[in-house]
């Protein structure tokens, strides 16, 4: 999607310093176009406000946006630089650190802080290093799904007729495949599963919702007078699609994408929990939770901490998606 929201870039101007980190956090989860736009926003006071800058203005004073945004920003930093947060290696196994030892909850950020697992690995280091898998998979599935789903939905919605019939039935077929079961079937056929294998499997079955939302949105937008006006002034199909339809139709898709992001992280964890997500020795919350369940009665901390972090992450993305939806939907104001 080649940055269709140009005015937004110009208009997201009133970036107060305190809102800065929140912007950064919102960026990657919104998918490509918004990322470009917000990143380019320079200081230009007094610039006019578009729908997007209105939304931004609204969002940055909402706790339900700022808090999850800050958490997500932190998670992103953890995912990129896990070494900043722990000195321990997540793979170093020392059986003298027995898993039945109680976590040293006062030793903040030390390897023994959250205790050790059955193999004498630091639970804290494991969850720090496990962040990357969740975030990377969640984000890349969302980006892929948004690009592909939007494309399919836009073509179906704009051209209608047999194009719509073919693409919509194709969407229906994919929608008919149960999401988790389908990805399981796909993933089982791979011997080793990297982050990319899991991402592609999830994206392969995940794009349908976006395509449907985009199709509906485009059908609504293409009947707008400004599309007829653009056509009556000689604009070509491509220009109409990219400049006039996409920017007006993309808001619901972004919202659905952000809410779905939490779902993709869950899906990754579930798959890893079932042992068909990332294959060893990849570090993933889901896989760790799986291994922890056999010791849940005498060492619940091994299960507890990755679960807490997983829940916080998913909740943050869901809340962020909700807040963005409220900001972009004028009817909910």
């Amino acid at each position, binding site marked *: 999607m080649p940055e269709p929201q140009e005015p937004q870039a110009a208009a997201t101007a009133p970036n107060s310093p305190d809102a800065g980190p929140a912007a950064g956090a919102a960026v990657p989860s919104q998918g490509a176009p918004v990322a470009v736009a917000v990143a380019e926003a320079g200081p230009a006071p007094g610039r006019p*406000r578009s*729908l997007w800058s209105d939304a931004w203005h609204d969002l940055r004073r909402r706790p339900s946006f700022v808090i999850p945004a800050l958490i997500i920003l932190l998670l992103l930093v953890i995912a990129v630089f896990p070494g900043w947060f722990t000195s321990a290696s997540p793979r170093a196994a020392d059986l003298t650190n027995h898993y039945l030892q109680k976590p040293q909850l006062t030793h903040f950020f030390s390897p023994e802080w959250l205790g050790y697992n059955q193999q004498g690995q630091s639970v804290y280091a494991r969850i720090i290093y496990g962040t990357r898998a969740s975030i990377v998979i969640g984000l890349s599935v969302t980006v892929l799904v948004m690009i592909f789903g939007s494309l399919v939905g836009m073509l179906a919605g704009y051209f209608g007729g047999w194009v719509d019939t073919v693409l919509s039935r194709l969407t229906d077929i994919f929608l008919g495949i149960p999401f988790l079961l389908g990805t399981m079937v796909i993933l089982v056929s791979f011997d080793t599963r990297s982050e990319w294998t899991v991402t592609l499997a999830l994206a392969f079955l995940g794009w349908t919702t976006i395509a449907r939302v985009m199709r509906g949105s485009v059908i609504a937008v293409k009947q707008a007078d400004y599309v007829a006006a653009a056509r009556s002034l000689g604009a070509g199909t491509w220009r109409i699609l990219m400049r006039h339809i996409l920017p007006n139709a993309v808001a619901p898709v972004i919202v659905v994408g952000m809410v779905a992001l939490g779902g993709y992280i869950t899906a990754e964890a579930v798959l890893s929990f079932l042992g068909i997500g990332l294959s060893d020795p990849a570090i993933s919350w889901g896989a760790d939770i799986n291994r922890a369940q056999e010791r849940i009665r005498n060492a619940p901390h091994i299960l507890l901490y990755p679960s807490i972090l997983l829940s916080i992450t998913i909740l943050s993305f869901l809340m962020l998606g909700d807040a963005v939806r409220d900001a972009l939907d004028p009817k909910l104001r």
Partner: protein
Amino acid sequence: MSIEMTKAEVPGVPLLEVRDLHVEFHTRDGAAKAVNGVSYTVDAGETLAVLGESGSGKSVTAQTIMGILDTPPGKVTGGQVLFRGEDLLTMSEQERRRVRGDKIAMIFQDALSALNPVLSVGYQLGELFRVHRGMSRREARAKAVELMDRVRIPAAKERVNDYPHQFSGGMRQRIMIAMALALEPDVIIADEPTTALDVTVQAQVMDLLAELQRDFHMGLILITHDLGVVADVADKIAVMYAGRIVENAPVHELYKRPAHPYTRGLLDSIPRLDHKGKELYAIKGLPPSLTAIPSGCAFNPRCTQARDVCRSEIPPLLDVTEPDGTPIGGRTSACHFWKETIHG
């Protein structure tokens, strides 16, 4: 033959001519005949007002000229749209796109919905120059400011980056006018340009439009249902009813002595000061459904003068003459009994 080659005015060939146009819409109840053999011409510097109530086919005709009719469900079933003698309807989509905006432009009724809410007005104005003239962003923006000045938007330079919702209704309509004027087209179609505005602003916008039309020596097709708007600006009027033109007349002639019962009904429905306190006249009945247009004259069920021949024979456009038989220039009426109507 390319458009460029015929750019000069060809004597004897009207600038824009609609010839016996038929348009249908496919609906569940069968074909809705929105336009049934409409013909009119516009020359450079001339204003034609197309008058009619909702559903009379005036906007559909305009959309067909512009080539922005939704097909399907719309379908042009016959006729020609000639621009400088060339039929637009048989052109390839690519050729047509070059005509749109550049040679023929359109002003929409509701400027708020006709401007893209997520793009600044400067961008939308500049887009025209970039698409049609291949200008750079910077040049296009400068042109946009120039145009906004031309349609008298105060502080155009500061407002060029504003978004449509930040302008008032009148200003938005001026921006629509600026967009239509941008490439100095030969013909402008204004589809109820003032309907969405309040009365004081209506006059300003109409004056601006008339002035610009004079300056650029354009042909203007003014589509409206408002007789008051028409009186000051139009040169000639075509009255439409149920997809047909029922009367053609120079503007003052039409007001003075209508030659069709429908036109007379419209004129009688205008509130007048000397009728204060009395009930306002209204044409009885409703416009016909376009899927079931009455046989004969489409107006016959509502007409006070209808006779048997009106229910069986479709009246063609007949030349209207003075009682002594001297022709009146440019006057036609599709009424079997135009003589009675005009001369009483």
